């Protein structure tokens, strides 16, 4: 659209006729590097195998020109252009493949730069369009500046003459004038910036713990392999096993916390959320892999306030956006704020969805039947485990001290059930449908009412017996559906009637 207005001094890489552009030539280095990394295990195996034989033929070196040639081929055959309201990507030598996407279907744009990309000043550009998963255009890689310019072209395609707004990006900036870590343009408002002290929340989230557990698991595997051979490991292991149990627990907690902190730093270092005057949300984060995501405001259908148990106890929250066009693997949502104090996250949520009642107002509770169902669900598994412990004690003579766990289990289950009931609630405001549920993973979803494109009222056999239902609002964004769980049937239909009166009147 407006790439014609970008003057020639912007040093477009290999701009040729009809507005076709190529990837950055430096990707020729990236490709062999990535291939090398991918085949590293195979190469290592080869080297180890070779050490045992006296054969001297280095035949794997023949692969190098092939890999380089493949990269060159990819560079020569891949082109993209923006024309007539479309972005076109053309690839392939023998089977030419042209992918086109209408610009008004572009939802989000991701710039990802892994370490080797960053060394070369490159970034991978991923453009997601309506329909999610398969409708993605990937440009691997452009120079960071070219990527940012492309992003500006795609997201700011709105004709200033139509909206009456001044040109979104101001005067074109020569590429050399954009340093690697440029501050946002002056007219972008910075909504939130990572405060290093928030790192203290890292061990309190399930994601943090999960990544720590993964690392511990991976390490312990390697550990058990080496422990037979290396005396250091053996001595270390026997040292740890001689310590008293509470020291072991402390040690474990320390290691897990450290790892969670590491994961937090890797993911969120330098986190910054900005919003430009067209309302496009823009995040940047990552220590080694730099990730920039831009989300068109017109595609945002709501926000999700996460209050998992650990964060809640520490007075912290985190914030995600509900939008169409993000990858399903990411749960269709992306970070608007990493774990941070509630005093930061709630005002931020209010700036994105200025609806006090929806973001922090009280919710309608779901009543005694919902409470009983929460209790049943917490107590039945606890009872089963307790019964198992008792049986194990009687039949196989397990240690009696394990029976101490039985009352703890029940106390925990009751607390969990109460907390889960406390979370259940919903609200309908003039613009939003709000639903909250969960304890360990409590989330409050603020969904735009005009983003709701259908309804389901689900009832299991047991729900019918106690007169509750799960009201599901379907949407094209985020998780595709957001549920109001175990709400009394009349209340479910009342919500439906308030949010979609014309649908309700049609069938009542």
């Amino acid at each position, binding site marked *: 659209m407006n790439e014609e207005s970008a003057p020639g001094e912007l040093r477009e890489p290999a701009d040729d006729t009809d507005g076709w552009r190529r990837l950055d030539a430096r990707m020729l280095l990236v490709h062999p590097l990535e291939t090398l990394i991918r085949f590293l295990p195979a190469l290592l195996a080869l080297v180890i195998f070779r050490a045992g034989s006296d054969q001297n033929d280095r035949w794997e070196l023949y692969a190098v020109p092939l890999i380089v040639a493949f990269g060159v081929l990819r560079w020569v055959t891949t082109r993209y252009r923006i024309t007539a309201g479309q972005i076109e990507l053309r690839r392939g030598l023998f089977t030419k493949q042209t992918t086109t996407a209408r610009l008004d279907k572009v939802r989000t744009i991701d710039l990802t730069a892994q370490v080797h990309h960053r060394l070369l000043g490159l970034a991978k550009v991923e453009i997601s369009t*309506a329909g999610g998963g398969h409708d993605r255009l990937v440009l691997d890689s452009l120079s960071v500046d070219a990527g940012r310019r492309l992003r500006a072209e795609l997201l700011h395609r709105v004709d200033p003459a139509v909206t009456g707004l001044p040109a979104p990006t101001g005067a074109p900036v020569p590429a050399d004038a954009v340093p690697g870590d440029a501050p946002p343009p002056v007219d972008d408002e910075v909504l939130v910036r990572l405060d290093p002290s928030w790192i203290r929340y890292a061990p309190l989230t399930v994601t943090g713990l999960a990544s720590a557990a993964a690392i511990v698991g991976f390490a312990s595997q390697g550990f058990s392999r080496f422990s037979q051979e290396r005396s250091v490991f053996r001595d270390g292991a026997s040292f740890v096993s001689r310590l008293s149990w509470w020291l072991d627990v402390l040690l474990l907690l320390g290691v897990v916390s450290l790892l969670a902190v590491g994961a937090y730093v890797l993911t969120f270092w330098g986190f910054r959320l900005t919003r430009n005057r067209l309302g496009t949300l823009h995040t940047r984060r990552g220590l080694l892999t730099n990730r920039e995501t831009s989300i068109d405001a017109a595609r945002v259908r709501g926000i999700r306030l996460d209050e998992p148990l650990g964060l809640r106890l520490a007075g912290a929250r985190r914030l995600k956006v509900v939008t169409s066009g993000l990858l399903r693997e990411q749960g269709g949502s992306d970070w608007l704020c990493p774990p941070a104090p509630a005093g930061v996250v709630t005002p931020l949520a209010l700036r994105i969805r200025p609806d006090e009642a929806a973001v922090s107002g009280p919710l309608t509770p779901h009543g005694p039947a919902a409470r009983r169902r929460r209790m049943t669900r917490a107590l039945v598994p606890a009872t089963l485990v307790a019964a198992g412990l008792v049986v194990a004690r009687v039949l196989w003579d397990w240690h009696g001290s394990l029976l101490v766990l039985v009352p703890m289990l029940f106390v925990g289950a009751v607390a969990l059930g109460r907390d889960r009931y406390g979370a259940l609630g919903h609200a309908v405001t003039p613009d939003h449908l709000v639903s909250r549920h969960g304890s360990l993973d409590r989330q409050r979803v603020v969904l735009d009412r005009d983003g709701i494109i*259908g309804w*389901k009222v689900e009832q*299991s056999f047991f729900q019918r017996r106690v007169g509750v239902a799960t009201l599901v609002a*379907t*949407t*094209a964004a985020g998780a*595709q559906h957001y549920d109001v769980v175990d709400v009394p049937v009349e209340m479910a239909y009342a919500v439906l009637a308030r949010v979609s009166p014309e649908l309700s009147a049609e*069938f009542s």
Partner: protein
Amino acid sequence: MPVPGVWHRGVVEPADVPVASDPVLRDPAHRVSRRAVVMWTFQALVVLAVLLAGQVVWWLVDDAPSRTPHWVVGAVWLVAGAAYAVAMPQWRYRVHRWEATPRAIYTQSGWLWQERRIAPLGRVQTVDLERGPVAQLLGLAAVTVTTASAAGPVTIHGLDLPVARELVEALTAAAVAETGDAT
């Protein structure tokens, strides 16, 4: 039996939309075809056949001299399966209902787990008519209406083929009349 004509009501203008005093929606107007019971029974029999195949394999592979476990396990699933094959289709038939107006489509389905789905036609992306082998033998068809949400396809199983054809035509016409990208 479905009443002739797919639309059962005229257009309701937004201005005279009343918020009903009792907001609980009534049942959708139409039942599906009676022959759907046969189709669901056949589906149940397929499940039973798979179980039977598993049982036969176990019988042939097992070297233990005692055949008692085989008879016990076989009797258990046979009783449960027979109850399923008899009760499920009838239950489903009593639950399954549908209704379409020029504005929206409304269905009710399931048996142990039941659900009602409503989709405004303005949000419809595609309308499909599907006929499996059994449905073809019985002269039945399923109509699926998809919206931009991956969670929201509305399917009506076991429609009489002529009714299904008429419904698809009406829905397609209504969906085409609406503009916008339906998200």
